[in-house]
């Protein structure tokens, strides 16, 4: 099976060769095309996802969702964009003009840049970096900066307060995020995402088998990083003034929104790549293009979970949000990170534990030991949380009874 994109690339190369350009410039043009394609794909997926998300949320809540514009409401996102264009472009008089206008752009850039290192199949990817995992983490810090800039430059107390809360949430959850990212890097001995995917060749070699807890930590902290339900306290539209983007309107506000939607799918894709084997699947070696379907299937499966969470879970309280991070996620991640290298070091040469279906299901001693470690850490963590909750409950029951408002007793006349 020939790769259609490779054919297209060859044709383009030939076309460029006929133009007699210097080789450096030719490369730049080729890169420019590739970059535009990737960025467009990311945006198109995002636009489609806004529709998908509304549709699925509607189904979960027993509604129909958008169904007027186009077949099944598919053109709804375009109608939304046109609506946004007719809004007024305002910059508050007291705002810091430059920072105010750069912030929404930076918010999208910080997400879009992640797509440069995402491999769609074994052949289709933007580029291979040997520091890709850290690159993803680094790019995310522009998002934090964008939030802070937006909140500060709006010159609005609520925006600034929202930005502070948002930033403290973002940076807090970056700690378990980075710690759990370290585990696939440790297992693959590489920061290159393509290498990490290649190492997860069969079903039981996926890192979700060897490090299920790390996968869970990564998923939870990235959802918090995006600021989606149940971690959407920075927006909380039903309770408080909108967060750092309160002064934004029209397309500038739309950019924050688009960045959030894109980020949600991006974290789903990253979870699929780092823990679920990305483009790996049966028959990929013969026809690499199949990898695209596997990758997209896994990404949308994870994305569906985020949508599911969004339509079912209630919002977390801010002190609980911080406590969940610092008192549960980070200690678990640190424990896991201390045990994983030790177990890995002593079991890496032990070989295969069992093999079935002609090698399609192969579990090595190493992965079995790691899985066992994960299960033990999970059980220990659950027990610790349970005991703590029990102690807190006992302490709370020792409080004096709180005054309760009672209806005035009817006096005998």
């Amino acid at each position: 099976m020939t790769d259609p994109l490779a054919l297209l690339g060859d044709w383009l190369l030939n076309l460029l060769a006929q133009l007699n350009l210097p080789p450096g410039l030719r490369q730049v043009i080729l890169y420019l095309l590739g970059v535009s394609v990737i960025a467009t794909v990311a945006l198109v997926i995002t636009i489609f996802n806004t529709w998908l998300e509304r549709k699925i949320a509607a189904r979960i809540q027993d509604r129909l969702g958008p169904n007027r514009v186009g077949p099944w409401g598919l053109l709804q996102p375009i109608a939304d964009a046109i609506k946004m264009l007719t809004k007024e472009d305002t910059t508050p008089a007291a705002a810091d003009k430059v920072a105010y206008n750069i912030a929404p752009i930076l918010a999208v850039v910080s997400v879009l840049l992640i797509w440069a290192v995402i491999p769609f199949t074994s052949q289709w990817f933007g580029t291979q970096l040997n520091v890709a995992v850290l690159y993803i983490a680094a790019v995310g810090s522009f998002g934090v900066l964008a939030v802070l800039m937006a909140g500060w430059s709006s010159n609005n107390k609520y925006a600034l307060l929202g930005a502070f809360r948002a930033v403290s949430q973002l940076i807090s959850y970056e700690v378990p995020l980075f710690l759990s990212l370290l585990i696939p890097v440790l297992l693959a001995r590489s920061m290159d995402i393509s290498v990490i995917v290649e190492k997860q060749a069969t079903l039981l070699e996926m890192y979700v088998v060897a490090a299920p807890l790390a996968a869970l930590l990564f998923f939870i902290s990235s959802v918090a990083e995006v600021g989606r339900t149940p971690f959407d306290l920075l927006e909380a539209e039903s309770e408080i003034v909108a967060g750092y983007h309160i002064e934004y309107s029209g397309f500038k506000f739309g950019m924050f929104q688009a960045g959030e939607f894109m980020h949600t799918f991006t974290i789903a894709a990253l979870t699929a790549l780092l823990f679920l084997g990305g483009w790996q699947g049966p028959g990929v070696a013969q026809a690499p293009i199949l990898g695209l379907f596997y990758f997209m299937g896994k990404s949308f499966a994870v994305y569906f979970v985020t949508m599911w969470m969004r339509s079912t879970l209630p919002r977390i309280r801010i002190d609980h949000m911080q406590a969940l991070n610092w008192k549960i996620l980070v200690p678990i991640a640190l424990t896991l990170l201390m045990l994983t290298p030790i177990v890995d070091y002593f079991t890496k040469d032990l070989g295969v534990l069992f093999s079935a279906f002609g090698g399609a299901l192969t579990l090595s001693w190493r992965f079995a030991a790691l899985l066992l470690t994960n299960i033990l850490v999970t059980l220990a963590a659950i027990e610790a949380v349970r005991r703590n909750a029990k102690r807190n409950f006992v302490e709370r029951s020792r409080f004096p009874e709180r005054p309760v408002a009672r209806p005035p007793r009817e006096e005998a006349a």
Partner: protein
Amino acid sequence: MHNSWLFIGIFILVAGVFPALPIILFHIFGPKRQTPEKLETYECGMETVGQTWVQFKVQYYIYALIFLVFDVEIIFLYPWAVAFDKLPLLGVAAGVLFIFLLADGLWYAWQKGALEWS
């Protein structure tokens, strides 16, 4: 290697243009009927009172502080994880000790009550 960074560089430019373009178009074609009142800051229907730079509680700084320390320590661990296959037992132990010291810092902050959102 150089080339993949050229790709990233071009990506940064294009990624900047992608969101900037609709915003600029919007700025040109979007309606603009602005009055001084409209451009005022909106704070819950009241006129703005006092300075915008209200002071924040120190808790925000403490979270940022713990984050900074963890951030720097974690980046030390990435080359260690990549080089894991080439490490002797001592090297592995050094990394684990490093993580243990990191956990110590968290433990101190916890005991001190710095992790409470009050």
